[in-house]
C-alpha cells in the first residue's frame, strides 16, 4: 500500500513549491492514477475541491492513455486544456502518479511545460525513495476498528 511519510511529503512539497516559483503557475498537485490526492501546493478558487479535480484529472488522463493505445502509442506524455481564464496541464510522473498543474494568464504553457519536465524527475525520484525506504508504523488496529461505532456518523 502506498505510504507517504512526513519526510516524503516534505520532499514532494518542496518539489512542487520550486516548480510553482519557477513556472509561475498557481496550483499543482500530485495524484495517484486512481484519483487520490497525494500532495498539493499553491492555491485555487475557493469553490474548487482538489479531491474532485484529482478524480476528474485521473479519469481524463486515463482516457487519453486509452486513446493513445488505440493509435499505437503507449501513452500521451501530457494533456492540456485551455479555458478563457485558466488552463490545466496534466503529465505522467511514473506508472502510478500524475502531476496536475493549474495556471492562469500570469504564465504560459511553454514555461509550465518546460519546468514540469525536471519537476517530474525530482518527484519521481522522491516517490521511488519513499517506496524503497518505507518506515512502517502502526496506524490503527483491527480492534480499534471493531470498537468504532459509526463510521459515517449514522
Amino acid at each position, binding site marked *: 500500500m502506498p505510504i507517504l511519510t512526513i519526510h516524503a511529503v516534505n520532499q514532494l512539497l518542496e518539489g512542487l513549491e520550486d516548480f510553482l516559483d519557477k513556472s509561475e503557475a498557481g496550483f499543482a498537485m500530485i495524484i495517484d492514477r486512481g484519483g487520490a490526492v497525494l500532495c498539493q501546493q499553491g492555491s485555487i478558487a475557493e469553490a474548487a475541491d482538489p479531491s474532485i479535480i484529482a478524480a476528474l484529472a485521473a479519469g481524463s488522463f486515463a482516457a487519453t492513455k486509452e486513446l493513445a493505445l488505440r493509435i499505437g502509442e503507449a501513452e500521451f506524455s501530457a494533456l492540456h486544456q485551455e479555458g478563457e481564464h485558466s488552463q490545466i496541464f496534466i503529465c505522467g510522473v511514473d506508472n502510478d502518479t500524475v502531476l496536475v498543474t493549474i495556471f492562469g494568464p500570469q504564465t504560459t504553457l511553454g514555461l509550465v511545460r518546460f519546468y514540469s519536465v525536471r519537476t517530474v524527475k525530482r518527484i519521481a525520484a522522491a516517490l521511488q525513495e519513499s517506496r524503497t525506504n518505507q518506515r512502517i508504523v*502502526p496506524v490503527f488496529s483491527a480492534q480499534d476498528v471493531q470498537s468504532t461505532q459509526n463510521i459515517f*456518523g449514522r
Partner: protein
Amino acid sequence: MAIINYANKEVQFKVVYYGPALCGKTTNLAYIHGQVNDNNKGELVSLATAADRTLFFDFLPLNAVVIKGFKTKFQLYTVPGQVIYNATRQLVLRSVDGIVFVADSQWEKMEENIESFKNLQDNIARQGQSLDNIPYVLQYNKRDMPNPAPVHYLEYILNNRKVRVPSFVAVATTGQGVFATLNAVSRLLLQKFAWENEQAVSRHQHAGHPPASTSLSGIAAVSSRR
C-alpha cells in the same frame, strides 16, 4: 490501494459501486450525499449523458470517522452500467479498495446481474487482482418493485463464491439499506487495512528495523524541523 499519509495523519480509500445499467448505483450516492453532514462531504460529481445515464463515473468524497488520531477518507465512485462502457469501468476500477455490487432485484434483470458480476470479476482479473482479495458486499436493490426475485434466489446466483459476503436488501430511492451497505463495506475495508498494517509492522520489526514507536518519533522529528 489505500493511501496512508503520515503528514496529514489520514488514510484514503476508494470504493466503487458496480452493477448493471439502471440498478441504482447513482441513486445510492445521491442518497448518501443528501444525508451526510456538509462538513464531511464534498460535491457529488456526475459525468452523465443528457438523459442522466452515467457516462464516465459519479464521484463523492466523504470524510469519515477518526481512528487513533488518523482521519479516514472514502472516495465513492460509480461505474457506467451500460455494456458498451467496459473500457470506462476498467479505468474507474484502478486502485480500488472496496466494491459494492448493486444488483437489480427484478426477475427480468437476473441475466444482467450475472453478466455484470462476471464482468466485474474479469475486469478485476485484468488488473492482476482477484475478487477474493478485495472487500466487497452485495446490495439487492429495488425491493419495492412489483416483481422482485426472492432474496435467497439472489443469494444463490450472486453470493455463491467460496466465501459468502455480507448482503443487504435496499430501496435506494428511499434510503433503505443504503447506509447499511456503505457501513459494511467501509468496515471490511478498515479491518483489512488494519490487519495488513499490523502484518507490515510485524514484518518490519522482524527484519531488524527499530520498534514502531521509535520509527514514529523519528518521522515526527522530520516533521518538526519544518
